[in-house]
Every structure is written in structure tokens, then in C-alpha cells.
């Protein structure tokens, strides 16, 4: 079971979190014309990297904040966590 440092609450067990996918995906702006290829990339295309990956998790059984987690998908090592408004590297 992973041990995840919520930037608001501190180190908490994985049980308190819910996984939310790739954090590097950016939604196209609302009310703007989006080329359909960009839209398809946003909705469907995800890399599935082996190694470092920046992910979204939500602290559902805690502060309910969405957070960023930089994790190694092969070893589960967590290098860094951050608020969603902060950049990881």
C-alpha cells in the first residue's frame, strides 16, 4: 500500500486516495474552437510510461483536494507531490 504525502494533510495511506489519471493532460479552453485532433488527443490519447509519471490523485477520505503525484510506475517510488496549482519540475 502506497504512502502518499498530501500537500495539505501530510503522509497518508493510499486507502484515503483515489487515482485520477495523467496530470500532464491539459483540457482545451472552454468557449474556444478546438481542432478535432487536439480534442481527440485530450479525450483519448494517453502515454503509459514505464518509469516517472506525474499523476493526479484525490484525497477523497481527507481534504478532498486533487493533488499531483510524481511516481515511478514500475517501482511505485514517489519522488514528489504537489498542489495541482504547483508545477512539478
Amino acid at each position, binding site marked *: *500500500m*502506497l*504512502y502518499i504525502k498530501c500537500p495539505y494533510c501530510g503522509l497518508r*495511506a493510499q486507502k484515503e486516495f*483515489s487515482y*485520477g489519471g495523467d496530470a500532464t493532460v491539459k*483540457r*482545451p479552453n*472552454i*468557449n*474556444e474552437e*478546438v481542432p*478535432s485532433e487536439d*480534442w481527440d488527443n*485530450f*479525450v*483519448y490519447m494517453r502515454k503509459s510510461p514505464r518509469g516517472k509519471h506525474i499523476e*493526479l490523485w*484525490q484525497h*477523497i477520505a481527507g481534504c*478532498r*483536494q*486533487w493533488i499531483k503525484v510524481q511516481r515511478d510506475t514500475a*517501482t*511505485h517510488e*514517489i519522488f514528489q507531490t504537489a498542489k*495541482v*496549482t504547483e508545477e512539478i519540475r
Partner: protein
Amino acid sequence: MSQPFRLNKEGLINRDKKISFTFNGKKLFGYEGDTIASALIANGIHLVGRSFKYHRPRGFFGAGVEEPNAKLQVEFNGHSEPNVNATEMELVEGLSATSQNCWPSVNFDVGAINNFLKMFFPAGFYYKTFMWPKSFWYKIYEPFIRKAAGLGVASIEKDKERYEHKFEYCDLLVTGSGPSGLASAYAAAKNGAKVILAEDKPRFGGTLLTDDVSIDNLSGKDWAEKIITELKSMPNVTVKNRSQVFGYYDHNMLVMFERVSDHLEKKSKFTPRQRLWYIRAKETILSTGSIERPIVFGNNDTPGIFLSAAAKEYMKVYGVLVGKKPLIFTNNDSAYETALEFKKNNVEPIILDTREEHSSELIDEAKSKGIDIRFSHGVIVANGYKKVKSAKIGKLNKDKNSFEKIETVDCDCICVSGFWTPSVHLASQSGNKLKYEEKIDAFIPDKKKQHETSVGAANGSFTLEESLKHGFENGSNLSAKITETKTEISIPNVNEKKYGAHDKFWCMPLPKNENPKRFVDFQNDVSVSDIEIALSEGYRSIEHVKRYTTLGMATDQGRTSNLNGLQLVSNIENKIVPEVGHTTFRPPFTPITIGTIVGREVGMEYMPTRKTPMHEWHEKNNAVFVDAGAWKRPRYYKLGSETLFEASKREAKNVRENVGICDVTTLGKIDIKGPDAAEFLNRVYTNAWMKLPVGKARYGLMLREDGIVMDDGTTTRISENHYHMTTTTAQAANVLSHLEYYLQIVWPELNVNVVSTTEQWAGAAIAGPKSRDMLSKLYPDLDVSNEALPFMGYKEAEFFGVPSRIFRISFSGELAYEINVKSDHGMFMWEKMMEVGKDFGNQPYGTEALSTLRIEMGHVAGPELDGRTIPSDVSLNGLVSKKKDFIGKNSLGREAFNVESRQKIVGLIPIDRKSSIPEGSHIVQDQNAKLPNPKLGHVSSSCWSVENNNPFSLAIMKDGKNMIGKKFFAVSPLKNKSIEVEVISSHYVDPEGKRVRS
């Protein structure tokens, strides 16, 4: 009642307390502190089971966790448990143990014929023999394998015991209380660290209990006791015996299995049987010790053959002799300690040492005591079927592959030692890639991946001095980093015997024309020839050899067999062991009970139960409940002997004719506040929200970004910047996370807050033509006319003195209202409604009637919004704005969503107007067509239309809008039904929606 193999004084058992038990029906006794194994051996019983494949007689081989053979079916405290390790299970009064895997009895086992049909059971036997013909599998092969194979019998009774889970955090977890573990725990405790020390066995001390050593002038056992006593007195230390750390998971999470009460005669009903500990440790000391490995020889599985350290442990801990005429067969010095222990107890052993004549401290001591030592000797084959009677021994030539002399000697036990294998399971599980240590012919931990440090024998250090030093240093250094305190501890003086070098000898050769079975893996019956066959058939990877031969795959995880198997493969392949590599160590290290894994999460405690504030009323009024997620909802209220069908029909009809009330508390409710709330809703929902006035509700549809409908519900504008959103019961949690995602990540610039208020409000729907009349009686001072409170209107008013919210919304399609009051007032509201409603023919209705009402109105719900439908599929495209952007809008333009023949919701009625159509039925053109019969759609919801008094269903059908009026078949192979149906509009009742506005 004599115990022929019990020593008079030796051992740590309590001789004042006799314990009676039975084995295969025979009444026996042992002492408190015995294991089942030690008590049986004391009684001279060695034959305890039959082997897995060949049904060969098997006895005890080890004295603890390493035991591969002695797995028993054990009955105690009212339950029956299979595969209990007899060398670990402590004796309790009244325990009854029986042999497994034998029929009709352990002494006469029909399956032993397999032993004489060996040629049928080589490596890969199952793969080869049972492949063909295919039709034989179910009827002949599988039943045969099941009968012949298998270990014990799992109980089919409900487990009445209590099991618990515990979460714990510590600075340092020490796994094993041998010398290095004790030293580590002690040093860390002195530095003020929070320490957990876990010992698998009942007694602390590990090898200190059996080795002839002294520390600071105390015997090993006394020193261990002194340290444990001190540790127990420290508030920062938790000391646990009977506790096996069996798994090392990510981020230094270790899982421990504690046997809390199986050894107790009496316990309170709240005492758990076993406890699972989830321990998050900052640092972990792996002081798991090592396990002796055997030397492979002919018929080495005969009862009476033991690991030499086990024989010593039986004498020193249990005061039991494994035999009175022992042969000690060794390639190293440690077995000499066993020989000396026999000698001390007036038993004359013969030592067969594969090494050439030489001298060492222990050899010299054995010689001086007059023990018969034969160098360059080994056991070729053990004689005796159910018990060792004699052994053919040989003097090895210099090449160690042929014999100078062969003779037979009498013996009643053989104690074998092939040197020591560090227990690296936990280190390996932590991600540590092991390395091969030539000096000890075994794998030890290499570079760390997590916060683990192996010390003592687990790290390949086999001397006491080194183990203690290593333990004190690591315990002190690791904890000092955490506590920033360092207490100096002087490392004690140690007195121990020096061992000479061991012999790299692991398998006895066979003389020409002799071909006895030589087992490598006892528990899975894997012999030397099986491994040879696997290699000759081309298996190379050790993982493949493992699976093909089943080497090391049994519950003992190959503790005594892995390295010998690797040696064999590397010898045949002409490789060195590290090139062959090792197989993967997986948790659990020892088998654990299912009960422990499950813990308290059984029955009512399986998941939380959510009850509405009106739950008790429903219970008292014969509600039959249905699970809606964790919620309990009334499905129907049973009157007399009514069936579900009858009751739901009555309840639904009453709503259509009079008025009914329904508990809708479970609907998800989200409070939305902030100056940008309208803009936010406008982006979240597909329809327009900017112009909704205060005091009005609106139905909304939300999509996922891929255009699929996510949820629907009404949202009401309570005040300028305050909205009340409702979601379906099932999607409440997902919708909240969804909203939070957009507010926190995508549009943080919007000034909006959302919070769940599902549990804060109790809700009741009042539905039916008489609902306005009833409402006016509930709110005598309020104008509830159609003009003052129109469809989709909202009002706040006092409900008999308590604040309430009135929404004029409808799920049933009738004139209807929903009243919300604070949860605390829920029951008050409900009872008041039942009282006032009497005059109007009010009846409560459950979810089944609710479904009937919404289905015949063509209102979609979960079965239609199934994660595959877009708004137009469910005829909700009228809610999709063309003017504004919203979540998922861009996806709705996708080609496949816009083809002419796109699926669409339709209604179905059976041609005979009688046959109910099973939900999940497939719609086909021709019910007799050849399979696969093309599927045109599926039935999503079915009901008995109370309005038209015949069955009616909703279906999602390809090209649905052009199918109206056509006839098809709804087939359900599951229910074995095929019903001819006609396609009609999905709005079966009141298609213009007049009633809700009336």
C-alpha cells in the same frame, strides 16, 4: 501413559501441565509448551502423512516454519482447519489431529500405488497425460486429480471466530528475535525509537535457545530472557511473539500475522483468534535467520529423517529425542552440535562427514567425547518404508562421485545438514535483488530498494559475535537517524565455538544399478530425476523449470529445496548458480488463514450500512429493503401475503390514482455556492443555466468529456449565489469528485465551492393527482396553487414548525413535490405526512413502484444511462445547447454519434400483452436464426404498466427511431425466454407531460 522418547529433564516445556489430545483417533498426551510435532515424536510417532503425488509415507523433517511434510487436519475450539503445520501449532487441551492426503488411513493408503507407478508421474505429468482427449477432462481427469491430489479439507461451516486488523506505525520494525534481532531492537529502544519486535515462535531468542553459547557469562537463553524482559518494560517498545511478518510491500508497509489465541484454553468472546497487522515502519531490520538445508540422498523422505538443527531443537526446547540410534549426515560443523547433544543425553550417534579427515574445535570435541566419526562418508539410501530402519552408507572416493566402500548400518533416525540458507524472503519481497555469496553457497541481500537492513544469519553472518555486533550497530545507527539520540552500548563478550569450513557437497551420488527416489522438494514430491527430465526436455529458465516440475511451488515455498534445486540445475547445465538465478519470493512467507485476511469485514460489517432517518418507520411497516450502494431503501411495503409484483403494482397504481409518498433521502445532494456558480453549472450541464431565476429548479444533464451521459438530476437556485444540486443515488460520489476536479484543476479561476449535503437533508416525494390537496394540508398557510408554485417551482416554508424546502419536481410523471427537511426532522416529517395523507388515500411506495412509474413515463435512469449512451440515444438531445460550450460538447460531433442508424431509446410491448420481457434480453429479427444471431438492441428496463395493465419495457435499439411499429423478438437465453414484441414510443403514458404541469 509413558512417553518413550521424552527426556527426563531437558527442555523448556511445562512438565507440570499435561495436555491430552488425539492423533488419528488415538488418545495421547503431551505437555504445555509442546507443538503437535514434539508431542507426537515424544510418543514415538513419526508417520504423519502421505506425500502429495506418490502417497509415500512421510514424517517430520523440521521443527518450525521450514517443515515441508507434517501438515495435518486439526480440530480444536470447535473448528476444523486443514494444512496446519504440526511443527508450529501449539498443543491445546482436547485438540484432535488427523493425517491428510491418505485414504483410507495413513498406514494403508490406496494412493501409494502411485509410488509403484512412478513412470506415470514424471515431471510435467499433468501437462502431458491430461491433455488428450479433450472430452475426458471434466468427467475423468479432473475428478481423478482432485481425489488423488489435494491436501486437507476446508471447513464448510461458518467460521465463528473473530479476526481483527490493526494499523500500526513505528520507527523500527525488527522481524525475528534471534541474537541479531534482539541486539537491533535493544539498541534502537535505548535511542528512544518506537520499536516493534516480532517473533514467529512462542518463545523469544531464536538460535540462542538451542546453541551452546554464552553472552556476558549468561547462557544464550538467559541473555535473551534478560533483554526481552527489559524491552517489555520500555514504553516505546512493542514485543510480539507468535507473530510472523509475512509480507513486505511498497513504501515500507509490512504485514504481520499474529496468532492471538489458538494456544489458549479459555478466552473471552471478544478475543480475536488471529490479528493482521499493517505496519508502516520507517526502517526495518530483517533478522529472520537462516534455515538448514538437507543433503539429497536416496529415499531421503523416509519418516525418521530430520534436519540436524531440528533434532537439536527437539532435544533442547521440547526434551524429545527424535531417535535413539542416530546417524548424523553432514557437510559442515553445525551438525556436530547435534551429535554432542545426543551424546549428552546418553545416546550414541555416528557422524558421517562428507569432508576428508581434518580438525576443528567441534570435531576435536566430538572426538574427545568418543563419538564415532566417519570422514568422506555419506548416506546413499535410507532403508525402511514407514520408518528408517537402517541406511546404506558409502565411503566416497576423492572425486566424490564413486565409492571406495559401501556398507549398511542400523539406525532409527538420520539427522542431515547440508549447511545454511539465509531467509531472504522479506528482503526479496522489498525489491532487493539478491546476490550469490560463494562463501556460503546461498543468496544474500544486495542493494536496498526500501528501508530494509538484513542482519545476522539472514545476511549470511553465521557467527554469534558477528550477528550481535551487526545487530547493535544497525539498530543503533538506523534509529539514531530518526530519534537524533545515540546511547552508547558496549557490545557484550561472547563465547562460542568456531566452525570450520563447510563442504560444497549437496547431493549424494548413486552406485550403479541403484535408482531410489532422491527428493529435492518434499512437499511437492519433486525428485532429482524430475529436474533432469525437465532439463532434457529443453526447459532452461529456472522459472520454467519451477512451473514444469512444481519445484518450490508448495506452501513451504521451497524453504528447504530451492538451493538444492538450483545446484542441480546449474550442475547439469554446467553453469554457476548465480547464472541460473533464483525464482521469485512472494508473500505470504507462511500460509495465513482467509479469516485473517478478511478480518472484521464479514456479514453486517462487510461495508457500512447507510440508513435514512425514516428507516425505522419503514422497518415497522413491513418494508422489504433493497441495497442501493451502501443505502438500504424500501423496495416495497408488504401488505399481508403480497408478492413483490402485487405490492409494487398496488403502490404504483395508488400514485396514479391518489397520492403516494416515497423516501428519496438517498438522492445525492450537493450544495453549490459562489458568484460564479451559474457560470460553473452552465459549463457542467448540457443545457443553459445563466438565466435560471431564484426560486426555480431545472432539470440538467451532465456528460463526460467523451460525450457519454454521466448523470442527470435537478438543480434549484436557492438564492443569488446558492444552488442545490441533486444527483442519482449511485453517482453522488462520482459527481462530487467530478465537480471538484473542474473547480480545482481546470477552472480554478471560478469562484465556486461545492460540498456534499446528502446526509444533511431528509427527503420525501409526494406524488399523484391528489398531491396538491395533501400539500395544502401540510402547509395550511402557504399558497400552493399552480400559479403560486408551478412545475419546477421552489419555496421555503415551515413544516409544522420546522424549516423545510419544497421543490415541485417529478420523477413519477405525476403532479408531484419533494420536501426536504433537516435529517433530524426526517422521521417527524414522514409521520406527519402519513397522518395527514390518510384523507387522500396516501400510501408509501418503494423503489419497485418508483421504477414502474418512471419506466412507463419513459424517464431514463441508470439502466439507460449505462456509460454507453449519448443524449440523443435517450431522447434528451433537446437539453443539449447549440449556443454554448460545456463538458463533453466537442465529442458530440464525432461521426459515429451522428450516423442515421444510431441507437435510440424505444418502448416495447409484448404482442400477447401478457409476457413480461426480462431485462437484459436481446432484440433480434429472427428468433430461430443461426448463431451468432445479429443483435439489434437490448432491453434496459421492464415493468408492468399499471396505466395500461400490460407489460412494458424500455430498450436501446439500433436505428430506434425508424423501428416504431415493427415487430421483433426479445430473447433471453438466460431465462430461456423468447417473446414477440412490438416497438412503440418510449413515452407510454402521458407523452405530452400534461400531468406534471397540471
